């Protein structure tokens, strides 16, 4: 009855479901797992510090994925998580924070996030609603609006976390041209290279999601990371055992492909 060649895959799927269930249950208990440091995140402090020195603003861009689309929104949410962290720092050090928003639907969420960060730092008066600048829902209008903003405001730090497509090169090139410290991250692996080369620090792929969970310490988001780690370890084990067995002259491929 089981389709030949897919039995092992079914087992993997069941294992994945189990891991998700276990980690989700554990997240309810409130014990937070340890998570490794993510290189680019440490640089955020320095970047904000530079904004203090130079008196220029900090710009945080959460991409044009929006919060409606099921797939792209994952990255936007992670970006907004990082934004909440940056907003706390800018509130603390009294640096202007500018956010160019790309989707009308996401603006209220961004505004609320930034406001709450300012509130948490005890300075809700420093929050400026006009600095959350909604441009347009259209990709290229948004890109050109953001580029214009970078050129005018000359931010000391330009941070980009979220969904970015072909426009990665445009943002990071313009940011570099005004001398901003650039920290960026996207899960679009095809566009990560442009961030890596043109920005000072870049998060690679999945590091964006981990960064979101890292800065917010949200139990449920951390549990996602943990469940993925478990699954990775299982796969890693299979690959390592398979490789060692193959070197020793045995093959586990028939087992995997049953």
């Amino acid at each position, binding site marked *: 009855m089981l389709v030949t060649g897919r039995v092992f895959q079914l087992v993997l799927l069941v294992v994945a479901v189990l891991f998700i269930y276990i980690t989700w249950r554990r997240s309810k208990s409130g014990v937070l797992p340890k998570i*490794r440091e993510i290189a680019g995140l440490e640089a955020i402090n320095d970047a904000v510090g530079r904004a203090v020195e130079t008196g220029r603003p900090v710009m945080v861009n959460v991409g044009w994925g929006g919060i409606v689309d099921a797939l792209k929104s994952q990255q936007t949410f992670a970006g907004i998580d990082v934004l909440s962290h940056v907003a706390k720092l800018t509130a603390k050090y009294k640096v202007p924070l500018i956010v160019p928003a790309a989707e009308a639907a996401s603006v209220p969420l961004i505004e609320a996030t930034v406001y709450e960060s300012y509130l948490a730092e005890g300075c809700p008066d420093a929050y400026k609603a006009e600095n959350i600048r909604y441009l347009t829902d259209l990709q290229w209008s948004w890109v050109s609006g953001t580029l214009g903003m970078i050129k005018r405001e000359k931010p000391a730090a330009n941070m980009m976390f979220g969904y970015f497509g072909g426009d990665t090169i445009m943002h990071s090139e313009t940011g570099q041209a005004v001398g901003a410290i650039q920290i960026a991250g996207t899960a679009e692996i095809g566009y990560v290279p442009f961030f890596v080369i043109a920005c000072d620090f870049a998060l690679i792929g999945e590091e964006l999601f981990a960064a979101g969970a890292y800065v917010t310490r949200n139990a449920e988001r951390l549990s996602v990371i943990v469940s993925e780690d478990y699954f990775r370890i299982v796969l*890693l084990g299979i690959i390592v055992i398979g490789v060692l067995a193959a070197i020793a002259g045995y093959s586990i491929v028939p087992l995997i492909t049953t």
Partner: protein
Amino acid sequence: MMSTDPGVWIAAALTIFVWSFLFKENIFSRFAEFTFVGMMTGHLIVMGVSNIRSYASVPLSRGDLTVIVPVIFALMLYGAVSRRYYWLSRWPTALLMGTATALAVRGFLTAYIVSQSVGNINAARAVVGPDIMAALNSGIIIVFSICTFSYFLFTIGLKGAATVASRRIARLAMMVAFGAVIGNTVLAYMTMVLNRVIFLFIEWLGLA
């Protein structure tokens, strides 16, 4: 010979409008963008209609009415434009989401997880093979892929010399891969510029 086709002239004007963005965003580049978005959205609808036509017209002409059922259900999607009937759109959206997600999950299992793991395990055979070059290359592939894969562990194996070394190898390997992406992408971007230049200089202005 300069082109006498008004279509070519319009296309040339639009090309120059978009390129004027390189100097500064201006009324012409904005005009071009809004034209583009209008046309793109219109085209999406046209293709949707043609798809539904293809699905429904032939069966309907033969008297088969059952094909209308999904079309009627799909109309619920348009609840999305009204706040009051927004909930209606959730049902067909859930079907779309459920289908796409399940298909992606099973595709990932077969085509990525199992096939690529098998690829790595099979590569290990060459490591002990007679060809030294192939053995070396397979070894590099296996080590790099394992290091890169475990680079994205965030809560397990946080300390130790092995972790540090593996993460270093992973980063260097990824940098090479990213360099390959950038180098190869230049090929595409240059082609796109060339395509427009050929259009302007040969099709429109008739040079060369």
